[in-house]
């Protein structure tokens, strides 16, 4: 490891390493006994190829099976590459939403979070987020990575981070059990707490989920407060359709920057909204390529769909911190060309995978 400082795995966020070199370096890191994680070193035995020799570049990532389901049970310590040493600097263990069963877990080392937040902060500058502002985060504080990204963003790009906690799993459960009134009361409780912070603190940046932003927009006093104080809103967690975004930009928060995130704990990060999307067009999300990449594919054949067509989103994460290729997400998206020189796809018009709907006959003419 004498030349580790030159590895494509250790470059700063804006270095733009060659994707194939990055993948080869990642294979060496994750599948060499001295540096790889116990999980991957064990898993390598049951792979039908040799990652060290058969994976020659980015395109070969598709050789890997989707191991995301295995991350529901594996001990978290087994996911940490040994190359981080005896006392790795770990920011936290993070969990997926748990919508499709037990939560999946990933471990986030500090070097990765720093690199991700540096990249994200540069995006915020492009979108016109004011530096040094106080941030209000209406997002889960944990166990999802969004809370950690919020805190790091607030203290590096802004000044202080004020948080309101949010438990999306409880909300999903209330809704699934038909207890809509309780879900509603919980959401109002969250907004009440955010309102208190908005009233008393000089909040300049707000991070929030689209459903909660809709609730804020229904309270005239909060709309006024946001318009008076908040210069930029970062939204994420669920989707915002183009018509809703347009209403915010033209009618409700006309002087506030609106910037979307599309992320997943399983990629240890986020994709950011492309700057300059015309009003009314679905926002395009660009990834932190080549570390985090998307491919928009036909779910049956696995082949990429044509640009402009809808397909299912496959996510790859390739970094020193984590190797998680070929993770088929529940979301569909329209395939958009990535920015010049970037590998993978960008994604627009994110939507959940459609449920199959049979032609049902309902008795009665209504």
């Amino acid at each position: 490891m004498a030349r580790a400082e030159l590895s494509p795995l250790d470059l700063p966020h804006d270095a733009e390493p060659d994707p194939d070199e990055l993948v080869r370096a990642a294979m060496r890191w994750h599948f060499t006994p001295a540096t790889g994680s116990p999980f991957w070193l064990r898993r390598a035995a049951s792979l039908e190829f040799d990652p060290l020799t058969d994976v020659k570049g980015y395109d070969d990532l598709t050789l890997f099976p989707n191991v995301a389901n295995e991350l529901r049970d594996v001990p978290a310590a087994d996911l940490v590459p040994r190359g981080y040493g005896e006392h790795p600097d770990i920011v936290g263990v993070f969990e997926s939403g748990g919508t499709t069963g037990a939560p999946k877990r990933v471990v986030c080392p500090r070097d990765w979070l720093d690199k991700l937040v540096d990249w994200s902060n540069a995006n915020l500058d492009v979108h016109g987020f004011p530096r040094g502002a106080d941030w209000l985060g209406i997002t889960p504080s944990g166990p999802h990575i969004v809370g950690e990204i919020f805190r790091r963003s607030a203290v590096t790009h802004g000044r202080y981070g004020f948080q309101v906690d949010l438990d999306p799993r409880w909300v999903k459960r209330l809704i699934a059990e038909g207890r809509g009134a309780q879900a509603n009361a919980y959401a109002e409780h969250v907004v009440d707490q955010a309102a208190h912070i908005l009233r008393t603190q000089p909040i300049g940046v707000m991070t929030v989920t689209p459903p909660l932003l809709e609730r804020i927009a229904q309270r005239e006093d909060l709309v006024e407060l946001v318009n008076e104080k908040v210069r930029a809103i970062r939204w994420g967690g669920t989707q915002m359709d183009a018509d809703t975004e347009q209403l915010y930009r033209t009618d409700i928060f006309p002087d506030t920057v609106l910037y979307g995130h599309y992320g997943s704990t399983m990629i240890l990060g986020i994709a950011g909204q492309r700057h300059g999307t015309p009003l009314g067009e679905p926002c395009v999300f660009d990834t932190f390529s080549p570390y985090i990449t998307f491919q928009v594919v036909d779910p049956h054949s696995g082949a990429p769909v044509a640009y402009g067509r809808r397909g299912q989103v496959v996510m790859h994460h390739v970094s020193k911190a984590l190797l998680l290729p070929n993770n088929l997400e529940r979301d569909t998206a329209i395939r958009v060309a990535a920015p010049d020189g970037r590998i993978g796809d960008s994604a627009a018009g994110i939507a959940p995978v459609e449920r199959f709907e049979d032609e049902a006959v309902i008795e009665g003419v209504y």
Partner: protein
Amino acid sequence: MGTAPQEDSNPQVPVLDALGPSGAYRTHNRQQILDVTGAPLAEMSLAPALFVNRTMKALRGAAPLPAPERAAALARAGELFRTATLGGFSPQEYEQAVTRVSGLPVNVVRTATRTCAERVGQSYRSVLFARPDGAVSDWRDPLARTGQALWTRRGEVLAVHVPGNHPGTHGFWPEALALGYRVAVRPSAREPFTAHRLVLALREAGFGDGQVALLPSGHEAADAILRGADLAYGGDEIIRQYADDPGVLSLRPGRSKILLTAGTDWREHLDMIVDSVVRHGGTGCVNATAVLLEGDPAPLAGAVAERLAALPSLPPSDEKACLPVQSAKSARALETYVLERARGTRAWLGGTGFVDELGDGSAVLRAAVHQLDAADAPQLGAEMPFPCVWIAPWTRADGIAPLRDTLVLTAVTEDEALIDALVAEPTISNLHIGSHATHWHRPGLPHDGHLGEFLMRSKTLVRV
């Protein structure tokens, strides 16, 4: 029906916009409206929940028009609905569009236009039939000086989730405007043209943008319409979900029926029976779903089948069309369902299928006639969106149990004790005695109770 959210808009077809507090609102998210052959006929803007919530708030913030203006505007709206070019559609173009997407025969659609216009035009008058005799509508009424019941709204904003089975269903909800409600209408994705035309007519007639709104919407935003209103009325999937809520008036299947007791000769009433089954294309809740006969039902079933078998299979736009048309796919799904449902019955017509494909992707739903063994057969209330009638024997021992849960019951009988029991039965909504078709109706008469009974209450008022 063939409707699907789509990403690429089609510049060739008209767009039906949402109609919000500041006029027409066109969205990027649209639903394609396909005709029965699968050809795109229009696109419908789908308002997001954020827009719905803001519209509901604006409706709540608007003051109702004074009563005389409401009466005048409703009269004008009925006339505009019947005669004006609205949203780029002349009356004929509107009727063509409804015919093409609903598959209802064009003559049925024309009749519905006239009926709907008449109902809307008279709704200020008709709604007053629901007012208790002892109540007045205005606190300034001199009777209030000595204490009087005052008829008042139960809320301010009504959500209307219209069913798409027949354009005639739109004739009733404007009564809410007559009462001073502000109204948000969610059109049916199956047939949104009538709701769009009616809201445009009402706005042009004098109800401002803040009084009545059109909110075409997907599931989530449609839910927001209901939640943003004080009361809701209609018959879509959202209403069904909240049907038990006392603030929701859910339109239920009609399961309309005809009963002929011994001593009546069914041959004298055959025209009325066939007409009850097939008028309006047989798609209404007021069409007869079942006929019960005290006596052997076989000859009656045979005669009804013979009459219905003679009806031609024609595309809905044909002047002579009288049977409904759907996309071949949904017609086949319905056929499979009905054949399965009819298992164990005696088929007189349509027993091996009733779908007649027209070769352009659409299919005629020809009539089906089945004879049941007994009045308590489970098929008796199986209401279908085409002329599909179940004919069963009825005996005194059956009593009124098989006649329950009926929107309109035509009872051809002179048995006053039986009539007493039918009048008293709370689940029979309307009773026609003698040879009146099940679809008989006049403005001012209740359809399933007066809408005013749901929208209004009486409170005591006394002044010094």
